[in-house]
């Protein structure tokens, strides 16, 4: 009797163990199931390279190029801001800050990670956007620049914590070796610790990009939501994620527009999949090198 009970429990444990694989496949399957229907009526190239996103005109024009470029522009801006600041902070926290301050800084960054994105979007809307509007003398502050700054901020916890881990896991003997040769602390960081942790830092940057591309609510509230091909940081844009969030509620189930939103979901899923697998490989390479 106990044998049977144990057998059943172990089977349940196994099923729960592999359930993550099941969910990833299930998510992809359901996105494909709805999204692929789009390509029966609209060729793939028109969807990806089409310059117009007018989903409610008749017939609907469903080109996501403006949305892709919007996402790329905002992400690019966010990465330009967040990578130098994030890596610099990671170095400061991992290498320089004394014990007490280190704990406070880490708590501050954890706090940032915990703030819901809709709260950050709200604060950005009523503080950041008006500043940008007055500084650059624009008709509206809800621009790609506002989105980039907000997203840079939101990517920080990811970048800092993973880069800090990478820096921290460089063997102590490397550092001692450099010190013994007369190098200063900064020379040691720059010439020894940073190169030794480069793949971990690269992974941190990639996961930061993943966080930025997938972010939805703050971006929707702060980038101004206009689906045109962007020409500068100072105009409103719309991202892939914001398009799904903003339009899904109003679309008719089974319409081309509905299928197109799922097709955008496929694009996002594939992007995040590639980023996460690459980052995972980078992090694992580091571990293998060490042992």
């Amino acid at each position: 009797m106990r044998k049977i009970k144990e057998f059943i429990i172990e089977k349940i444990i196994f099923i729960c163990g592999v359930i993550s694989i099941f969910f990833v496949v299930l998510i992809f399957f359901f996105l494909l199931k709805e999204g692929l229907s789009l390509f029966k009526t609209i060729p793939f190239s028109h969807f990806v390279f089409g310059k117009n996103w007018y989903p409610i005109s008749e017939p609907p024009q469903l080109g996501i190029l403006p949305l892709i470029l919007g996402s790329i522009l905002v992400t690019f801006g966010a990465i330009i801001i967040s990578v130098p600041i994030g890596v610099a902070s990671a170095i400061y926290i991992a290498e320089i800050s004394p014990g007490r301050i280190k704990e406070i800084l880490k708590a501050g960054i954890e706090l940032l990670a915990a703030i819901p994105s809709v709260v950050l979007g709200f604060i950005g809307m009523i503080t950041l956007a008006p500043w940008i509007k007055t500084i650059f003398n624009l008709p509206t502050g809800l621009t790609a620049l506002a989105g980039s700054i907000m997203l840079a901020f939101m990517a920080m916890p990811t970048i800092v914590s993973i880069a800090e881990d990478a820096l921290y896991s460089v063997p102590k003997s490397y550092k001692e070796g450099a010190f013994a040769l007369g190098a200063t602390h900064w020379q040691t960081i720059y010439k020894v610790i940073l190169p030794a942790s480069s793949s971990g830092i690269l992974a941190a940057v990639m996961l930061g990009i993943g966080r930025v591309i997938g972010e939805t609510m703050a971006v929707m509230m702060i980038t101004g939501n206009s689906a045109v091909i962007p020409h500068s940081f100072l105009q409103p844009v719309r991202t892939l994620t914001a398009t799904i969030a903003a339009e899904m509620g109003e679309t008719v189930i089974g319409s081309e527009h509905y299928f197109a939103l799922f097709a955008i979901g496929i694009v996002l899923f594939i992007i995040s999949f590639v980023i996460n697998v690459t980052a995972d490989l980078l992090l694992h390479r580091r571990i293998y090198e060490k042992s």
Partner: protein
Amino acid sequence: MKNPKRIEKIVFSFLFLSTCLIVVPVGFIVLIVVIKGLPAINWQFLTDVPREGMRAGGIFPAIIGTIYLVIGAILFALPVGIFAAIYLSEYSKDNFLTRIIKLAIVNLAGVPSVVYGLFGFSLFVIFFKFGASILSGSLTLGIMILPIIITASREALESVPYSFREVSWSLGASKWQTIRSVVLPNAISGIITGSILGIGRAAGETAPILFTVAAFYLPQLPRSIFDQAMALPYHLYVISTQVPNVEEKIRYGTALILLMLVLCMNLIAIIIRYRLRKRKTW
């Protein structure tokens, strides 16, 4: 070349400034929300339904909706997550399957939240015909927080020393008995910490509930798990972008309640983790 000691001083000040560039705004954001939101908080705000097109009254249905959603999500994710963690820490071997499972968990954690919304909509709302309901929303949020719970529980289980298991086996206990009466009790604080962080995440997310449960305006409370519900993060989104002329006080008040809910969860998790670290003797 200049004096390397001086270069070091300059560089270190820059690194310090960069860190301040992150931490100081975080402090400001929390401070702004608290200072501007506090005047809105009173008994009526917490216990009344929204009135006059959400420009007055309270946010009670949104608070209750979020609590229901979080309870539903954790009821699903906690058992599944713990069992998955037990598999990874106690049963799995270092083989291809385990590698794929770990990769799947990493991916699940990285899927954009709005894609969870699409998935939840097509699977729970349409395919299973649950409709836009608390059930659909909870399950969607539950799958989303699963990686957080698995990762935290697994770490907790793996930090229980191997010798504890060996002693239990040598006394004739079976593998499952050992897990249930020796490994799990010693890992429980870590598991609770992970679950609370998951709850905080589920309470704050908006995109996954947009199409699976969230109601724009619903002055009565949900009566069953097949009802729609209001939720705090969605309510904040609605009153700050969709409804014109809402008093700023009400927006800040809603943001404050949401922020406090999420930060309290994190604070509890941090305290448990801290006490656990102090108590641990092995």
